[in-house]
């Protein structure tokens, strides 16, 4: 060899966008929400988030080690799984539960399928679903944000007020469930009009670590879309369909049902629309498929929120749509530009 030459099939150049850089950008986009979470829930948020991320990394490393596969921590997807999982659990979640959830998410949700890219379901949502199913009580213990509760000691996890209810969605759910209690919904809808809307936007409310601050989530989501990390189709489909489907019951009877704006801003909808439903691995590849997927997520969410037993349906609707993603792809095959060849 005269010169250290290389031969390979064409093309011989490629673009400097790697899996790692994509994942890194997602992590960056999640940072505003993390900041908001730390602001509202103080060290609790930090502890839970750190536990989830670290456990995810360790679990992935262990699986790779067991299978004698090259280390894949560098692609950073496990960090995202940890962050998203942490963002979708209550701040007061005990550390042991965070560990179980993260390990389940990575091992059963991802590595048994073959690791990055092979999983059918969103690992973080699998982890969350497992936690919800296992520790329902712990998963519905909401912490009063520091902004509302002036007693919340700064920078310590102990002794903060934990209340068992009072997420906005839970109010609205109760109103639907007990059909005769009109006041609850009225309260909700009225609160959207005054004051509550602001709280929904800023995040000064009970809820999961990363879901409360709508503004931070929107900033992160726009960052992802504008930098081309995700396409806009899934978020748009989710948001539009949520809006449309939730206005139907609202216009039929606005005494019982919450307003579309409330639905858009409450619960895990925004983080789901921007960060979770858009997980490329578990959503369809094609644009048409992405529309179907997004509409499905929005529709099911509203279905579960209004008719189901749970106050929030984002996680379940994402998991359900994940499961039909292969079917969607099967039936939304893209057609070559020159049309389908005969015979």
């Amino acid at each position, binding site marked *: *060899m*005269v*010169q*250290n*030459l*290389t*031969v*390979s*099939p*064409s*093309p*011989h*150049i*490629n*673009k*400097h*966008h*790697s*899996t790692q*850089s*994509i994942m890194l950008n997602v992590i960056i986009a999640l940072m505003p929400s993390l900041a908001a979470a730390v602001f509202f829930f103080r060290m609790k948020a930090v502890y839970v988030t750190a536990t989830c991320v670290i456990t995810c990394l360790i679990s992935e490393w262990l699986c790779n080690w067991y299978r004698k596969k090259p280390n*894949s921590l560098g*692609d950073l*997807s496990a960090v995202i799984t940890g962050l998203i999982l942490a963002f979708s659990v209550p701040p007061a979640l005990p550390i042991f539960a965070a560990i179980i959830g993260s390990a389940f998410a990575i091992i059963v949700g991802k590595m048994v399928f*073959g*690791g*990055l*890219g*092979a999983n059918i379901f969103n690992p973080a949502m699998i982890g969350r679903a497992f936690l919800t199913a296992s520790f329902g009580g712990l998963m519905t213990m909401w912490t009063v944000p520091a902004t509302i509760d002036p007693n919340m000691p700064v920078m310590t996890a102990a002794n903060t007020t934990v209340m068992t209810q009072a997420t906005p969605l839970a109010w609205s759910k109760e109103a639907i469930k007990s059909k005769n209690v009109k006041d609850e919904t009225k309260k909700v809808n009225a609160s959207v009009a005054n004051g509550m809307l602001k709280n929904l936007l800023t995040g000064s409310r009970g809820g999961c670590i990363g879901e409360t601050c709508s503004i931070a989530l929107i900033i992160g989501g726009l960052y992802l879309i504008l930098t081309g990390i995700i*396409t806009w189709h899934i978020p748009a489909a989710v948001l539009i369909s949520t809006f449309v489907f939730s206005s139907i019951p609202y216009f039929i009877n606005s005494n019982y049902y919450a307003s579309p704006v409330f639905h858009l801003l409450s619960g895990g909808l925004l983080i789901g629309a921007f960060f979770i439903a858009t997980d*490329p*691995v578990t*959503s369809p*590849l*094609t644009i048409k498929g992405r529309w179907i997927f997004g509409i499905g997520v929005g529709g099911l969410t509203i279905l579960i929120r209004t008719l189901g037993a749970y106050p929030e349906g984002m996680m379940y609707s994402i998991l359900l749509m994940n499961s039909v993603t292969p079917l969607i792809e099967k039936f939304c*095959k*893209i*057609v*070559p*530009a*020159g*049309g*389908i*060849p005969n015979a």
Partner: protein
Amino acid sequence: MNFPGKLTFKGGVHPNDYKTLSSQCAIKTIPVPKQLSIMLSQHIGAICKPLVNKKDTVTTGQLIANADAFVSAGIHSPVNGTVKDIALCSHPVLGRAQAIIIESSDDNQPKQPVPNTFDVSFNPALYSADKIFDAVRNAGIVGMGGAGFPTSVKIKANPKAPITDIIINACECEPFITCDYRLMLEWTYQILAGASLISKSLGCNNIYIGIENNKPDAIDIFNKAIKTTSFASNIKIAPVKTKYPQGGERQLIKSILNKEVPTGGIPPMVGVLVSNVATCAAIAEAVVLNTPLTHRVVTVSGNGIKNPGNFYAPIGMAVGELIETAGGLTHDAVKIILGGPMMGFAIADLATPLTKTSGAITVLAQKDIVKRNQTPCIRCGRCIASCPVNINPTKIAHGVKHNQLDIAQQYYMSACIECGCCTYICPADIDLTGYIKTGKILVARQKKLMPK
């Protein structure tokens, strides 16, 4: 000016084009090489049989190999000399193939380009369609844009499938390559003459020249020339969007004419002929001066080349020699590519000769190539979005990888034009195009279409 198409197509990528490395270098003639290896298979269709034997003497322009088949093109000697051997020689695509090895005699003068033969006064009416066909066939002209399809076959009018539009492909969308660009600037009238000869031969008057809009001077010079000539007044310049692979014929047809060539089909099916500018120039020269195709302009460029430039080189010249002409390799050159970095063929044997379709030698330096470090597909869909023929590269590639060719075929593997956009864009560094090419070979072998 209005065009039926939007001057762009769906998909494609925007690699850094590096054209400035050689775009200002005028076409240079070079000394006659000592030895030439002329490949017997330089085009699509029947492989030529040698007409000369070892030790025969040959003269410049002498037909040295030919095939009887209709889809084929003869091969001529670029120099005076003797046949040293007929033996295996490195071939950029086939690996090793038969070549006629000619030792040039000392009396050779380097061939000079002939653009000055052509000017405003050119009159295509002097040449009948039959004459044009014969001249092109006798000159052994094949498509110089890359595919190497015998041009005579393309320009023969077929009453059953008349050609309604002619597109001259002047996009040159691959990074680094500037040979067509230089041709346009320097051989403007020769190209226009070639185009009008094609139109004469096919009896079709809609001619478009598709030029990427990052070459405004070429667009200008053509526009001016068209205004001044009468024979080329029907030619329209289409400033298409700069995007790889704008020069792919399907993409160009879509951009300019808004027509889709059917999957698995060819442009004549939608009544279009696409021809490269260099091909046009060769046609003009062959018809007017009766000279065969023995030389072509080759861009030697890349960050691994000391003095990039555009050279008028004889076919059969060894790549290594031409690289030396361009100053040689830099110390960090790692990949020598016959063609551009997107579709070209990497070679390692510097004795590999040029063929009629080799428009460029690109030498990449360490910093240009990205070490392939394949990670799992994250299903991001970028490959689909960038695919100019709108197929699903990742599904196909994974089908091939897991030996499930039926899946690959269900996702229209055969429609792939091997442009390389998907591999280029893939964040997981998966060699999608490589898998697809492999899959096509496997399918062909399954169908026993390909000899082993």
